[in-house]
């Protein structure tokens, strides 16, 4: 990676990265990809987030689902760890709590494959600050 040399460089890079991420999420298929974010903070990991993440990666491959799984920090629902956020193409993100491998299996089968919601959704109960959108 070459160093960012100026503010202009930084802004350009940001634009590139945003479209790169958008592109990555679109994939080649018309439906786009499933985005899975696993909360991997200390409490998440302590409650088994790592196993869940590994399980989901494996299962997506086995079940030929076009998904990208990334880790992220704590969303704050500590009582419901491990938590997993799933964004189906064209849909609002949905967060599931108390996810173990069994629950993960249910989520894959019902929600990801069939868009059938599964019990245990954690409703979003906060506001985010608006991000400054570039051009």
């Amino acid at each position, binding site marked *: 990676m070459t160093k960012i040399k100026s503010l202009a460089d930084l802004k350009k890079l940001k634009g590139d990265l945003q479209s790169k991420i958008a592109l990555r999420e679109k994939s080649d298929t018309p439906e786009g990809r499933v985005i899975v974010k696993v909360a991997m903070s*200390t*409490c998440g*990991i*302590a*409650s088994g987030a790592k196993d869940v993440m590994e399980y989901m990666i494996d299962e997506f491959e086995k079940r030929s689902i076009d998904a990208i799984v990334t880790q992220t920090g704590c969303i704050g*629902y*500590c*009582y*419901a*760890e491990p938590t997993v956020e799933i964004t189906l193409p064209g849909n609002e993100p949905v967060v599931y709590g108390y996810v173990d491998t069994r629950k993960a299996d249910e989520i894959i089968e019902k929600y990801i494959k069939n868009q059938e919601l599964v019990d245990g959704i954690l409703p979003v109960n906060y506001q985010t600050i608006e991000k400054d959108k570039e051009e």
Partner: protein
Amino acid sequence: MTSIKLKLKESEVQQLKEVAKSFNNEPGELINVLHKAQEIFGYLPAEVQEVVAQELNVSVAKVYGVVTFYSFFTMLPRGRYPISICTGTACYVRGAEKVLDEFKRLLKVPVGETTADGKFSITCLRCVGACGLAPVVMVGDKTYGRVTTDGVKEILKEYEDQE
């Protein structure tokens, strides 16, 4: 204090000296060096502190003063499976004390000590920041959340079969 001098492994002493050197043998790096020393030896016996003092050119008394100030540093060897019970506020109000009592009862050692077979040791720590899982117990690096008194037995069982 035991008067029997502990023999340190030369390779480990050498490793420690390298660590000190990597910190330019700066007295100000004492705490960083002690962290590394504890990683190398597992604990900080007097003999290790003497090496640290010598390498950083500070008095042994000062090293000892620092070691005894911080609860993270220990002068006692810990068990192969060190058990740490979080006694932070969240864990306290959710029954950490009972969990601690159960560990003490089952292992028959007080806090800060190691079982005779060197397998388990019990320590208390202040908040690992996993309050959502209170009460929390750590065995080595592994964290157990929402531990009940019944769960204590199960946790121990996991390790009893090993070795």
